[in-house]
């Protein structure tokens, strides 16, 4: 029997973290302002009151310190879940994430696991200042030893955070902050799909459009608009950026013959580029058009008043769809 609950993503994450804390005494949360305040996005609201300040720890304001000590805690046998306050503030921890966390299992020849989750609110649409709206996923997807995932719905957020905590590998868990507030149905009894799988968010026949995180809602909007004009888009939700589950992507492209990859991140050396290259290699004879990318520009994320011009919206996705159909 399914237990459906309508929750915004922030509350779904809160529920998922609570469940993880209840289920496993080795799970710890650590980060800046995650205690009494509940985090700047309130994702951890109430958890310190419920589980105590030894399991939900406000840390000193030092991201490398957070991840570096999480590594030591994982060596001891804990499963730390770190909150990085904003995408642009993950970089002080970049060294510990890429040179230590990602590599310790390999360095110890399998003698140790690194079950550390790094939660990073990412992406635009919130009108924030510099360093508060970025999409740094390519840096992490490029790094061997890390897993990188991003939910697009409250349901996936609830389950994917639990599955990430259960993973014995480090997971960069990217939370699309513009999706923290819209509500969606969460099935509390059934996860539906595994952590590293691509999902078909909407079936269609003529063009496949693919994205992750907040971009998925843009793609669904584009699909609605296209349907009004008689064009059928199939929307794929990538969910996992490393590893990438290519099965559903190739299956969809073999059906539609066209693929548009959309992302908020700059397009140069991006996850979208990687997918475009792989699809070209593996589904060449199925393609009726080149794989097209719709991305943020290869510039710094602009001041907030310009962000709607920077971030791909449904119109820009549909412009690419039209180009794909023109071949």
């Amino acid at each position: 029997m399914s237990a459906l609950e309508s929750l915004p993503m922030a509350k779904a994450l809160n529920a998922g973290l609570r469940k993880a804390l209840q289920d496993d005494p080795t799970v710890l949360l650590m980060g800046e302002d995650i205690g009494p305040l509940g985090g700047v996005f309130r994702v951890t609201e109430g958890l310190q009151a419920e589980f105590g300040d030894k399991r939900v720890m406000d840390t000193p304001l030092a991201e490398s310190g957070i991840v570096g000590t999480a590594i030591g805690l994982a060596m001891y046998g804990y499963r730390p879940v770190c909150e990085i306050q904003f995408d642009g503030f993950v970089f002080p921890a970049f060294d510990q994430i890429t040179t230590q966390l990602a590599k310790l299992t390999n360095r110890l020849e399998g003698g140790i696991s690194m079950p550390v989750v790094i939660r990073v609110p990412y992406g635009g649409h919130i009108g924030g200042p510099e360093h508060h709206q970025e999409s740094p996923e390519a840096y992490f997807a490029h790094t061997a030893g890390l897993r990188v995932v991003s939910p697009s719905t409250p349901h996936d957020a609830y389950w994917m955070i639990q599955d990430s905590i259960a993973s014995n590998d480090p997971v960069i868990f990217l939370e699309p902050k513009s999706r923290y507030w819209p509500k969606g149905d969460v099935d509390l009894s059934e996860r539906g799909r595994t952590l590293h799988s691509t999902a078909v968010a909407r079936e269609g026949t003529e063009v496949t459009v693919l994205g992750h995180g907040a971009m998925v809602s843009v793609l669904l909007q584009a699909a609605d608009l296209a349907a009004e004009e008689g064009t059928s888009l199939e929307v794929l939700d990538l969910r996992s950026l490393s590893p990438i589950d290519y099965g559903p992507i190739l299956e969809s492209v073999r059906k539609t013959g066209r693929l548009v990859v959309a992302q908020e991140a700059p397009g140069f050396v991006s996850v979208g580029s990687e997918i475009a290259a792989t699809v070209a290699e593996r589904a060449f004879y199925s393609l009726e058009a080149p794989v097209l990318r719709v991305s943020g520009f290869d510039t710094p994320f602009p001041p907030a008043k310009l962000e709607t011009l920077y971030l791909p919206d449904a119109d820009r996705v549909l412009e690419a769809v039209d180009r794909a159909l023109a071949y």
Partner: protein
Amino acid sequence: MSYTEATLQLLSPTGSLVERDATAEYLPFVEKLTDAQLREFHRVMAITRAFDVEATNLQRQGEMGIWVPSLGQEAAQVGSGFAMRPQDHIFPAYREHAVGIIRGLDAINIVRLFRGLTHGGWNPTENGNFHIYTMVLGSQTLHATGYAMGVALDGKSGTGDPEFDEAVITYFGDGSTSQGDVNEALVFAASYQTPELFFLQNNQWAISVPVSKQSRTPLYLRAGGFGIPGVQIDGNDVLISYAASRKALEETRAGGGPRFIEALTYRMGPHTSSDDPTKYRTDGETAHWAALDPIARFEAYLRSRGEGDAFFDEVGAEAADFADNIRRRTLALTMPPVSDIFDNVYSEQHPLVAEEKRWLAGYEAAYVSGEAGE
């Protein structure tokens, strides 16, 4: 930076016991040491030096890509190494060969690392809780602090039973004190009052840059700014290294919060086999520190206590055997399997890595069967 009035010392450079008010509280730790323990201090220092010299030779003969010598730092390492208890965990940098040997690590594994056969070389849980070397300077201090936070959270320190309570020790150098991670580790350690000893080996040089470029203040004084008690010791005096470390470890394991020791020592050799110290330091400086040699000093002390030639000859022979053994086994080391590239990148299966492993196996097999290139 050389010894000052603040530098704690129990053995003078000529090997005689120094009695000062400042070190009175350290003497009892040394007075409890048996003759056998004192002989063991000397034995490990001598073995480590022989190992180190042999490893340098092996590198020069092309048998290792690089070597990181510990020459001159034996007393700092051996004193602190013997101050630990079996349950303690050690997070070294990459030069703490003597500590590894004390904790039961087979030194050939250090050779495997620098020969290019592995990025790690040993499992800490099977090697006296001696964690693997870390090449990114200072990174390990945060791992140590996190581990120590885990010890405290788990109630494995602060009970007052020194046989039970765990402590963590992390080693780092003067250069790494400029790294953000070391400073963050000190912040976190103070904040969470970890059972942890920060053991700084100030060997005066970060490759070619003198410690004066890293700090305008004696480094042990920085600890106070973090709210952590710190002392400076003569790092070439194995007795004060032992006593200060023992005292600090017993205090921190009992729940007293983190401690900091700056051991003034000297890197007699290069930073690694890849640099040439004559380009950046003077013969006079090297000669000054050579006169403060930790092993000669301790030998003089043991002789003053009645230890005779027989013991030192025996240790010399054992050290030579140790080095010979390392040389023989180094030359016998075999290539790691190709699968080492792919295995253990993740704990759980990762399709891309699995696919690339299969691809390489097929590619290699094609060459063997003569199919490739046709």
